[in-house]
Structure formats: structure tokens, C-alpha cells
């Protein structure tokens, strides 16, 4: 069957939610197993002492990108029928800057904080409390503060390769190259740190 199944009515809603639950189990397992519940490992990407986040994140992106590209071209899935985010570049740029600040201040992002809270990290519980406060704050001030801004930079569903005016395959090839280069650079950066970290730090980070 050509995917995506649920959006075409080929999967009943209960099974769809069950699949969401099962995929979530895998996602939570991998986040924990890779060390993403350790806030110092997450922060490490920004200071260079831990390259784990870069490796996991870009390997996941490359795998999914290549897989879906091949499946789309073989007619196994029609990506245009999936959740495909519309671009609002100004809103996302400003929202992203706020998230970047939140990452450094708070040491988590929403997915990692949930895994961390589930496994006993008290700071992650506090972080999640903050996220909920932030969302409620956003809802209550939506009309007065955010409604206009959230719609700014509206471009619709935009494919980055088309936007750059190059072929999809070439773009993906460049993305893979950049990812591999980033593994190399961040590994070098991590190696350079190794002598400066204490033994306790290296142990805790599992480096």
C-alpha cells in the first residue's frame, strides 16, 4: 500500500493512535539510551565538549531524509499527503531564537525533558512546568501579542531544494556531506576538550 496510510483512510483511527504510542516508546527509548536525558550532554554540543547530540541528530535526519526520498521516488509513499510544515519564516526565526535561549538557560528541549522527567530528573519536571506555563501564557496573550507575529513571513509549503533552485537529489547529497563534515568537526572539538575535563566529568558524560 502506498503511504501515508492514515491520511488516506487506510488505517483506522485506533490503530493510528496505537502506532503513535509504539513509535513514542521507541523514540523515548532512544532518547534515553543515547544520553539525551543528561542535560550536560545536551549543553555539550554548544560548548564542544560532547559531540553526541550532533551525531544522533544528524544521523537521524540523514536516515529519514534519504529513506523518505527513495520511498517517495519509488512510489512507496506520497510525502505531499503527510504532515508537511508550512513555512512562516519570520515567526519561526523569532520563535527559534527564543527556543535557542531556552535551550541554554533550561538545558533541555520539550522531548528530552519528558524522557528526563520520566526517569527521575527533578530539573526536567520543573522545566516541563515551565513549558506548560509558557504555553498557557502564550494562549492567554495570543490576541494581544502573538496573533500577527505568528502569521508573519507566510510562504506556504516550501521545499528547500526548490526554494534554492537546485535538484532535490543534489540538495540531499550536500546535506549528507555537511552532516559528515559536522561529525568530524565536532569530534575534533570534543577531543580537544578531553584533557581539560575532570575525570568525574568524563565519567558522568560517558565519553
Amino acid at each position, binding site marked *: 500500500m502506498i*503511504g*501515508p496510510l492514515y491520511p488516506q483512510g487506510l488505517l483506522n483511527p485506533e490503530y*493510528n493512535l496505537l*502506532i*503513535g504510542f509504539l*513509535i*513514542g*516508546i*521507541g523514540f*523515548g*527509548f*532512544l532518547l534515553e*539510551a*543515547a*544520553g539525551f536525558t543528561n542535560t*550536560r550532554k545536551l*549543553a555539550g554540543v554548544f560548548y564542544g565538549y560532547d559531540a553526541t547530540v550532533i551525531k*544522533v541528530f544528524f*544521523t*537521524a*535526519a540523514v*536516515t*529519514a531524509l534519504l*529513506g*523518505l526520498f527513495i520511498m517517495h521516488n519509488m512510489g512507496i509513499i506520497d510525502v505531499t499527503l503527510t504532515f*508537511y*510544515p*508550512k513555512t512562516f519564516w519570520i*515567526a*519561526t526565526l*523569532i*520563535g*527559534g531564537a*527564543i*527556543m*535557542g535561549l531556552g*535551550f*541554554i538557560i533550561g*538545558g*533541555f528541549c*520539550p522531548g528530552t525533558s519528558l*524522557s*528526563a522527567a*520520566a526517569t*527521575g*530528573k527533578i*530539573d526536567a519536571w*520543573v*522545566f516541563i512546568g*515551565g513549558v*506548560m*506555563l*509558557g*504555553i*498557557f501564557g502564550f494562549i492567554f496573550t495570543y490576541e494581544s501579542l*502573538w496573533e500577527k507575529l505568528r502569521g508573519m513571513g507566510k510562504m506556504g509549503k516550501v521545499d*528547500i531544494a526548490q526554494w534554492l533552485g537546485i535538484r*532535490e537529489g543534489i540538495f540531499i547529497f550536500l546535506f549528507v556531506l555537511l552532516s559528515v563534515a559536522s561529525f568530524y568537526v565536532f569530534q575534533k572539538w570534543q577531543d580537544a576538550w578531553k584533557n581539560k575535563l575532570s575525570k568525574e566529568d568524563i565519567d*558522568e558524560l*560517558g565519553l
Partner: protein
Amino acid sequence: MKENKRNKYMNPYLAGFLMGILIILAYYFSGEGLGSSGGYRDIAFGTLNAIAPDYAQSNPFVSSHVGEGHNPTHTWLVYELLGVIFGAILSAAIFGRLKWSIGKAPHLTTKKRLYLALIGGILWGVGTQLGRGCTSGLVLSGIAVNSLSGYIGLVAIFGFGFIFAYIFKNIWLKTSK
């Protein structure tokens, strides 16, 4: 001393590869990307709808998700997040990492860490709603389908992240005076 598994992590490339497979499966079966902040939002909508349904239906940000025929918490993302909880506990149990603790750089006080976690969380709450998703739903799942939006999120979150990391480096690094 017996070697403990507590500080052993899965090979990052293997973890990333398997995560990529999960994204493909999520798109194939459900047409959804892996996400997190969307589930938090759905729970906020559901809570608001339960406490103040009239307000929820009058707020333009919330109204399309509540009311007749809508169950704001009965969504794919909420079920996925429930799974995340189970999966994380399973892995932590296997690796012997299930215990109460606070993650922080050693020089930072616990009190300060918790205040910062709260503020950071609030920023994420606002940022995700304005920017339409977080590191997983906006960036990772966006990149997976070549969406420009995912790349803008990537550049914004990590680009500004590096700038703020430099400014606030005393949170994570002991800067000697």
C-alpha cells in the same frame, strides 16, 4: 569494582539511525513526524477546555481544536508522548539510570539550576507556539521532508543557541576568575 552501565550510552550513530527509521515509520503509517511540543500544546488545550470551555472556544488560537467533534487530547502526538515516557523508563531501567537526581554542572547551585530550568521551560513554551514546533516536530521532522521551515528552525535554534551559549557560558562551564 564491578563496571556499571550507568554511564554507558548507545552508539550515537546507531541511535540516530534507529531514530531515523522511526521517523520514516511515523510518516508512512500516520503521515506524522515525530514531535513533542505539539503534544504539550494538545494537553494545554484539553486542560483549558475542561476548565473553561467557553473561553477555549472564544480564543482564536484554541478554538479550532476544541468544541463539537473535537477531543484535543485524543491526538497522535499525545499518544506518542505517552509512549516516550514508557520508552525512556524502559531504557533507564535497563541501563540502571532510574533514580531521582538533578542534572547540572557541578559548580551551579541546585536552587539556581531549578530557577533556570523553569525560565528555560517558559521560553520553550512560548517559542514553540510562535515558531510552530520544537527540535523534533519542527526541525528533525521538517528536515526529513525537505521543508524550508525545518531548516529555518535548525538555523534559528542552533544558531542563536551558540550565541546565547557564549553569553551564558557560566551556567555550564566553570569560568575561572
